């Protein structure tokens, strides 16, 4: 067990998100819709030493396994992250996040005049660009602060 892992307690069932870019852990929690009021046990390490990244953040969430769509958005704010799914204290799945070609279902288009904000049966979908996201319906660009557009 490394010094880094010692800083935050082990979890029984849930997700450990490791190698999050330093300073992005709070955005990851925002992505997961966790603000601490849910009562979910959760540990956070920020700016801890990392061989690979120099400094990194680590997020451990009890009782919650990251969905594929959440993992896709995670890749946009923490491209180096690894996701560890924990069951009964064991890592049952470990994977690097992969940058998808498009993401759907997790973000809301910031353009109020977009058809995806009009109460129609359509899932907001975004093409992943080198430097941001683009709504597949109205073409609106999201180039900064992606987490501000997460669906509540």
């Amino acid at each position, binding site marked *: 067990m490394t010094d880094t892992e010692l800083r935050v307690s082990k979890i029984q069932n849930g997700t450990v998100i490791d190698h999050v870019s330093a300073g992005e852990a709070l955005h990851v929690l925002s992505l997961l819709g966790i603000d601490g009021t849910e009562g979910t046990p959760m540990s956070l390490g920020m700016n801890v030493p990392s061989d690979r990244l120099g400094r990194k953040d680590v997020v451990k969430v009890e009782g919650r396994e990251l969905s594929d769509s959440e993992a896709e958005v995670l890749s946009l704010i923490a491209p180096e992250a690894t996701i560890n799914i924990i069951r009964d204290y064991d890592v049952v799945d470990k994977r690097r996040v992969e940058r998808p070609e498009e993401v759907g279902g997790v973000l809301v288009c910031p353009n109020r005049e977009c*058809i995806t904000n009009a109460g*129609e049966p*359509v899932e907001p979908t975004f093409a992943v660009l080198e430097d941001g996201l683009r709504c*597949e319906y*109205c*073409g609106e660009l999201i180039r900064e602060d992606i987490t501000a557009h997460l669906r509540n």
Partner: protein
Amino acid sequence: MRHDHLLTAKQLSRADIETVLDRAAAFDDNPAAAGERYADELLALCFFEPSTRTKMSFETAAKRLGGDVVDMGSVESSSVKKGESLADTVRVVEGYADGIVLRHPKQGAAKMASEHVDVPVVNAGDGAGHHPSQTLLDLYTIREHAGLDDISIGIMGDLKYGRTVHSLAHALTNFDVRQHFVSPESLQLPRSVRYDLHEAGAQVQEHESLDAVLPNLDVLYVTRIQRERFPDEDEYEAVAGEYSITPETLDAAKDDLAVMHPLPRVDEIAAAVDETENATYFEQAHNGVPVRMALLDLLLDDD
């Protein structure tokens, strides 16, 4: 052209555009060229916003091809008033017609509609998004007057919300065209269109005044600046006056400058300009019929 729908001008290659324009030219020469090939075809007109030219020219085009139209009528008289979704509306209309022409106030509406139906959808305007069939008739008109390569075009007015501008700018990136955008700062091109023009490597310059660039232009495409875009009447009047065209304005232009406008105009082109050789906007509107005939011919053809 092998497309199921016409949703944005971005989807059109140069070859696609030339195919439509060449076929439009054939219909222009001989409106009966399609014969009765479309005698059993019905085109649905679903206009959730007012329209005169676009709707009537699609109707004329369908009828000139030997087909007919079914018209949803105004929103006030339709099920939309009862809260029906667009997705449901187009799924119902799909059962009545062989193609759907859709105008809707929300951006991306035509794309969403196209995902719910198996018949071709033509985007006839989606809010401040796109208006690709207008662009095809604009290109047809530009080709007739100036050709589509090695030309300079000025695009002036409301560049931010003007869907005809957005579609035209995208389409022109297929050609050797220098694009000059002229507008007040508050109505400059939206970020998404700039992004695409940059990605396409387009030759683009932006100006707040027409004066410096006018003498170099082969085409001047004027659009309406709408009152509701401005916080107060005085500001609107000041800006609108600065971006309007009179016969005197044209003294500084090339003799064969083509002045275009998607219409309706209010006072951004003075009526006196109609009498000049430069006035091209009514011819442009007339071109809507052969161009939309060509477009329907390509989209509805099952072969």
